[in-house]
C-alpha cells in the first residue's frame, strides 16, 4: 500500500466513524435530552380520555321541592370536523337535518357556528363551546326522527343522535325563577383557559348565570375519566385508567316554590295593572327576605323568560329577544342588576339623618307646597300645602318639603358652596351607614352597586366630565344644544364638583343622582325591621352531597348596623306603620287583617324612551310585616309603573296574602307558606318531592 492509499483509508475510517458518532449524539438527544417531550407527545398520540359527565346536583327549595333537575334528552349533534370537509361545507346536510327535525335552517346554521365566526353584534345563538366537540342543535329531538339520522348515516354525514343529560327547570306550581336559577351551557375557550384553578373537560356543561353559576363548583361534580390506549386505527387496545364520575352536590335554597310563584304572579299583575292605566311599565322586581337572617325567600324579575330555552336550543329570535330593548331585556336580573332612584322610600334614611342631626322627631314641621332653593322652586310631590305636620304624619303622607328645608338648612350649616372641612354631612353619613354604595353581597353573580352622590362622588364625576361641560357648545351634538341643556352645562362647568343646595335637597328625597337596586332597598328595610342589623342576603342555604351529608351550610352573615339609636328606629317603624294605617298606602291595605309597615316611593326619571316619550315614574313599595314582630321584608318595584301605592303596594299586599294565608280579610295561619317561620331544618332531597298543598 502506498502513502496515498493509506491516507485515503484513514480518511475513510475517520469519516465513517464520525458518522456513527453522529448517530450516537442524535440518539442521546432524542432519548435522553428530549425524551420527556417525546414521551408526552407519544402519550397524546396513544391515549384518549373519554369524559363521562357527572350528574349535576339538584337545586331545591327550602322544603326540598326541585327547582332544577336533570332529564334524559335526545341530542342531535353536528361534528364540524366532518361537515366542514364536505364540498358544500355541510350546508346540504344541515338543511336536510333542519327539515327532518322541523327546525329553521338559519337557527341550525347559527347554532353550529362558533361565536367568533359570526360578525360582532350579530352573534345571537352562536355556539359558545369549541369546534372540537359535537355541537348539539337540539337536546329534545323526537326519537322517531332522530332514529332516521342514525339509520341513514349516508344522508347525514357528521350528524349524530345520542341521549344526553338535559338540565330541566320543572316549573312546579308555575314557578319560573329563571333569574335566580340561571342556566347551564357549554364551556367556552376562556373557561378552559381560566386561571382560577378550575379544571374543566371540553364536553362538560357549566353554570352560566344565577345559582347555576354561583354554586357551579358544587353542582357540577367531577366527571368520570376513562383513559384508553388506542392504535393507529383508533381501536381501543387497553384501558389505562377508569375513574367513576362523582355526582354533583345538591343545593338547598331558602326559596319557597309556592311563595316564589306567587311573588312572580304578583309582580306580573302589578305590571299589567300599571299598563292598564297607561303607564309604560317596562320592568319590575319583587323580593321577599327573612329579616332575621337575610335569607331570600322569593326573588322575581320582570320580564322573564323560560329557563328551559337554553337547553332546548335557543332559536335566533329567542336569543335576540333576551337582550332586546323592545322586549324589555328579559335577561336582566332587575332585583340586583337594575338601578333606580329610590324616591320617598329613601326618607327612612333621611329620618335617621335628621334624628342624628338633633331634629326633634316628635315636633311639628311645616309642609308647604314648595321651597325655593337658590333660584329654583322645589315642589311638594303633589304641589299641595299640608300645613304643619308631625314628623310621623309627614312620613305617612310623604311630604317632601319638610325634607327640602331640613336638607337645605344642614347644607348651609355645612358651609354651602364653600363646605367646611369638618362638615357633618348627616345625610351622607346616614346613607353610608345604610351601606347604600356597597353591594349587598348576595350569592348571585353580577350584582350592581348603588350610587351615593356624596362629596367624593361629585368631585370624581366632575373630574371625569368637566372637559365636556366646559366645552359643551363644541362637544355636544346639535340635538343637545337646547338653551336648558346649555345653561345646565355652564352650571356644571362652574361648580359641578360642589354639592349644591339643589343636590342636597334632591338627595333627601331619594332623587337626583341617587340610585339603588331593589335588593339593596330590601336589605335596608329588613334592617329597619329587625332592629338595625344589615344582613348579607343569601339564596343558598346548604350544599348537600348526593348521599345526604351536608358539605357546607351557608350561614347568615352580618354586614353592619344601622347608624340609628333604638329610639330612632322605633319611631321610624311607627312612622312606616302609619303609612299603611293612614298614609299613602292606607287605601291599598284597607281591610288587610295583618299589620304591615312600609313606604311608598314614586321616583321621577329623566330621559326619554326609545320612541321619544318621556319616561314614567318608578313605582316602589318597601315594607315589612308583621309590624309588631317583623319577620318578612317585601319590596316591589315597577319601573315606569306610576305611583308607588297604586302599582307596587298592591303587589306587596298579594305577596303578604300568600305568605300569611290571607283570604279577603281573614287569616288562616294553617294556609301560611311558613306556619312556623321559614324552615330551619334541611329537607330530604329527591327529584320527585311535591309541594305540600295547604
Amino acid at each position, binding site marked *: *500500500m*502506498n502513502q*496515498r*492509499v493509506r491516507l*485515503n*483509508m484513514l*480518511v*475513510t*475510517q475517520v469519516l*465513517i*466513524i464520525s*458518522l*456513527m458518532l*453522529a*448517530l*450516537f449524539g*442524535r*440518539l*442521546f438527544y*432524542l*432519548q*435522553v435530552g*428530549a*425524551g*420527556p*417531550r*417525546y*414521551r408526552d*407527545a*407519544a*402519550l397524546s*398520540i*396513544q391515549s384518549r380520555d373519554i369524559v363521562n359527565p357527572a350528574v349535576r346536583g339538584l337545586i331545591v327549595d327550602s322544603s326540598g321541592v326541585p327547582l332544577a333537575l336533570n332529564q334524559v334528552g335526545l341530542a342531535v349533534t353536528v361534528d364540524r370536523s366532518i361537515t366542514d370537509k364536505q364540498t358544500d361545507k355541510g350546508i346540504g346536510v344541515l338543511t336536510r337535518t333542519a327539515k327532518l327535525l322541523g327546525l329553521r335552517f338559519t337557527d341550525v346554521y347559527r347554532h353550529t357556528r362558533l361565536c367568533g365566526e359570526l360578525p360582532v353584534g350579530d352573534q345571537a345563538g352562536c355556539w359558545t363551546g369549541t369546534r372540537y366537540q359535537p355541537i348539539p342543535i337540539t337536546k329534545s329531538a323526537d326519537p322517531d326522527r332522530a332514529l332516521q339520522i342514525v339509520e341513514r348515516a349516508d344522508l347525514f354525514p357528521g350528524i349524530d343522535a345520542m341521549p344526553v343529560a338535559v338540565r330541566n327547570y320543572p316549573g312546579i306550581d308555575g314557578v319560573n325563577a329563571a333569574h335566580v336559577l340561571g342556566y347551564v351551557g357549554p364551556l367556552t375557550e376562556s373557561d378552559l383557559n381560566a386561571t382560577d384553578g378550575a379544571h374543566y373537560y371540553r364536553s362538560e356543561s357549566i353554570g352560566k348565570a344565577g345559582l347555576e353559576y354561583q354554586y357551579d363548583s358544587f353542582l357540577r361534580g367531577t366527571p368520570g375519566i376513562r383513559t384508553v*390506549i*388506542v*392504535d*393507529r386505527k383508533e*381501536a381501543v*387496545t*387497553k384501558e389505562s385508567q377508569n375513574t367513576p364520575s362523582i355526582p354533583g352536590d345538591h343545593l338547598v335554597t331558602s326559596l319557597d316554590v309556592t311563595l316564589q310563584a306567587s311573588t312572580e304572579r304578583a309582580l306580573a299583575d302589578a305590571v299589567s295593572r300599571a299598563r292598564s292605566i297607561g303607564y309604560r311599565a317596562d320592568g319590575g322586581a319583587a323580593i321577599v327576605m327573612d329579616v332575621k337572617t337575610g335569607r331570600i325567600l322569593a326573588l322575581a324579575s320582570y320580564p322573564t323568560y323560560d329557563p328551559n330555552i337554553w337547553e332546548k336550543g335557543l332559536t335566533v329570535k329567542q336569543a335576540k329577544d333576551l337582550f332586546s330593548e323592545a322586549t324589555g331585556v328579559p335577561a336582566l336580573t332587575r332585583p340586583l342588576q337594575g338601578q333606580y332612584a329610590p324616591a320617598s322610600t329613601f326618607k327612612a334614611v333621611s329620618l335617621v339623618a335628621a334624628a342624628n342631626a338633633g331634629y326633634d322627631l316628635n315636633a311639628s314641621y311645616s309642609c308647604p307646597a314648595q321651597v325655593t332653593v337658590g333660584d329654583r322652586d322645589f315642589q311638594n310631590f303633589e304641589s299641595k300645602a299640608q300645613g304643619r305636620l308631625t314628623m310621623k304624619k309627614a312620613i305617612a303622607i310623604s311630604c317632601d318639603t319638610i325634607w327640602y328645608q331640613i336638607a337645605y338648612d344642614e347644607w348651609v350649616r355645612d358651609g354651602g358652596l364653600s363646605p367646611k372641612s369638618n362638615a357633618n354631612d348627616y345625610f351622607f353619613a346616614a346613607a353610608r351607614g345604610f351601606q347604600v354604595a356597597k353591594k349587598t353581597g348576595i350569592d348571585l353573580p353580577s350584582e350592581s352597586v348603588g350610587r351615593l352622590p356624596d362629596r367624593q362622588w361629585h368631585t370624581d364625576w366632575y373630574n371625569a366630565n368637566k372637559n365636556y361641560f366646559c366645552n359643551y357648545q363644541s362637544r355636544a351634538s346639535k340635538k343637545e344644544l337646547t338653551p336648558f341643556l346649555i345653561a345646565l352645562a355652564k352650571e356644571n362647568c362652574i361648580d359641578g364638583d360642589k354639592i349644591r343646595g339643589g343636590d342636597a335637597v334632591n338627595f333627601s328625597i331619594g332623587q337626583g343622582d341617587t340610585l339603588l337596586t331593589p335588593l339593596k332597598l330590601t336589605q335596608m328595610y329588613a334592617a329597619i325591621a329587625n332592629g338595625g342589623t344589615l344582613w348579607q342576603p343569601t339564596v343558598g342555604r346548604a350544599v348537600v352531597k348526593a348521599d345526604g351529608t351536608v358539605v357546607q351550610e351557608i350561614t347568615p352573615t352580618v354586614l353592619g348596623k344601622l347608624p340609628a339609636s333604638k329610639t330612632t328606629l322605633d319611631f321610624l317603624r311607627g312612622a312606616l306603620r302609619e303609612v299603611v294605617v293612614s298614609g299613602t298606602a292606607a287605601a291599598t291595605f284597607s281591610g288587610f287583617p295583618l299589620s304591615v309597615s312600609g313606604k311608598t316611593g314614586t321616583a321621577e326619571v329623566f330621559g326619554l324612551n326609545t320612541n321619544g316619550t318621556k319616561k314614567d315614574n318608578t313605582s316602589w313599595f318597601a315594607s315589612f310585616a308583621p309590624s309588631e314582630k317583623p319577620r318578612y321584608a317585601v319590596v316591589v318595584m315597577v319601573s315606569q309603573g306610576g305611583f308607588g301605592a297604586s302599582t307596587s303596594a298592591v303587589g306587596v299586599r298579594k305577596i303578604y296574602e300568600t305568605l300569611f294565608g290571607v283570604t279577603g280579610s281573614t287569616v288562616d295561619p294553617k294556609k301560611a307558606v311558613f306556619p312556623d317561620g321559614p324552615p330551619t331544618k334541611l329537607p330530604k332531597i329527591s327529584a320527585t318531592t311535591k309541594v305540600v298543598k295547604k
Partner: protein
Amino acid sequence: MSTEQFTKRGRINRRSLTHGFDPYLTGAVLGLLVIGTLLVYAATRSWYAANGLDPQYYLKRHIINILIGLFLALGTTLIDYRLLRAYTPIVWGIGVVGLIIVLIPGLGSEINGARAWISLPGGFQVQPAELAKISIIIGMSMILAERTHGSDQPTHKDVAQALLVAAIPILLILAQPDMGTILIISASVVVMIAVSGAPSRWVVGLLILALVGGFTAVKVGVVSEYQLKRLQSFVDPTADPQSSGYQLRQSRITIGSGGFVGKGLFNGPQTNGRFVPEQQTDFIFTVAGEELGFLGSAGILLLFFLILVRGFRIARRSQDPFGRLVCTGVIAWFAFQAFENIGMTMGVMPMTGVPLPFLSYGGSSMFVNLIGVGLLQNIHARQRG
C-alpha cells in the same frame, strides 16, 4: 464456527484458511440477528393478533430468511476469494439482468412508487438492486486490482472501466427509481476509488459529480414526485402530515418516548399501536428505540461499530488490493446503509426506502448482507501471518 468443522467435511482448502473467522465480527453479526428477530416480532405480533392474523407470521419468515442468509454466507466463505474473481463477470451479469427484468412490466412489481421487486411464485419477492451492490463491489474491485501495466496503482483507464461497471447497474436502479440504494452505492463507489490508489482528481471529480448530479436530479425531475415528497418531508416534517412527514414524526416520537431504559420488549405502546408504518422493515430501529431505550439502541449502534471496526481491520491486513477493495466496499456499504436508515428514523437523513442491515425484515436485503459478511470472513480467513 471453527475451521475444523469445515475441514472434516473436506470441502475447504485447509492451507488457505490460516486464520479462521473473525470471532468479533461473527459475534456482532449474530447479536444483531438475534436482536433483529426479537424486534421484528415485537413490531408485528400485537398488530397482527389484533387484526386476526398469525402473530408469528413475520417472525417465522424472518427466521427462515436468516437461516437462508447464513447458509449463503457460509457458501461465500467456501470459495477462496482470489478465485472469486473468475466468477465476477457472472455475478455482475446476473445482477444486471435482474435489474433489467424488474423494469419489464408484468415481471417487476411496483411498490411505493418504485419498480424494485420481482415477484416469484409462493409470494416471495426479490430485490435485484440488493444483489447489484455485491455485483458492483466485486466488479469494481476486480478491475481496480488488476495491474495490467505493471503499475502500483490503477490507471485512468482502469478507473474509467471500474466506473462503467458501477454506472450500468446504477443507471438501471435510477430507472426504478430507488434513490436510497443509489445513494449508498454511490458513496461506496467513491470510497472504493479513493482507497484503490487511483489519482486524487478522480475522487474530487466524483464528489463534485455527486453534488451536481443530485442537484440536477431534483431540478430536472429525474427524482419522482414520490421521492421529492420524502425529501421535502425531511426538510419540513409538517409538509405532508398524512404520509411521509407523518411517518417521520411518528418515528422520532417513538424513539424519543423510549427514554433511557425503554418501555421493555413487547411493551411499547407506539409499536403495539402500529403508529409507525413499515415498522418491521425500514423503521425497525424505532422498535429498539421505544422498547429497549437508549441503552438498547446504543447497544445496537455499538454492534454496528464493532462490525465496521473489524471490517476495517480485515481490509488493512488484506494481502492483496482485491481483498482490500472488496472489504472496504462492503464496509462502506454497511456503514452508509446503517447511517442512512438509522439517521432517517431519527430525522437527520431524508426518507429513503433502505432497510437496516441485519435487523430489518426482508429476504433480499438479509441475504446480500450476510453474503457481504461472508466476503469479509472469507478475506479474513485467508490472510497470512
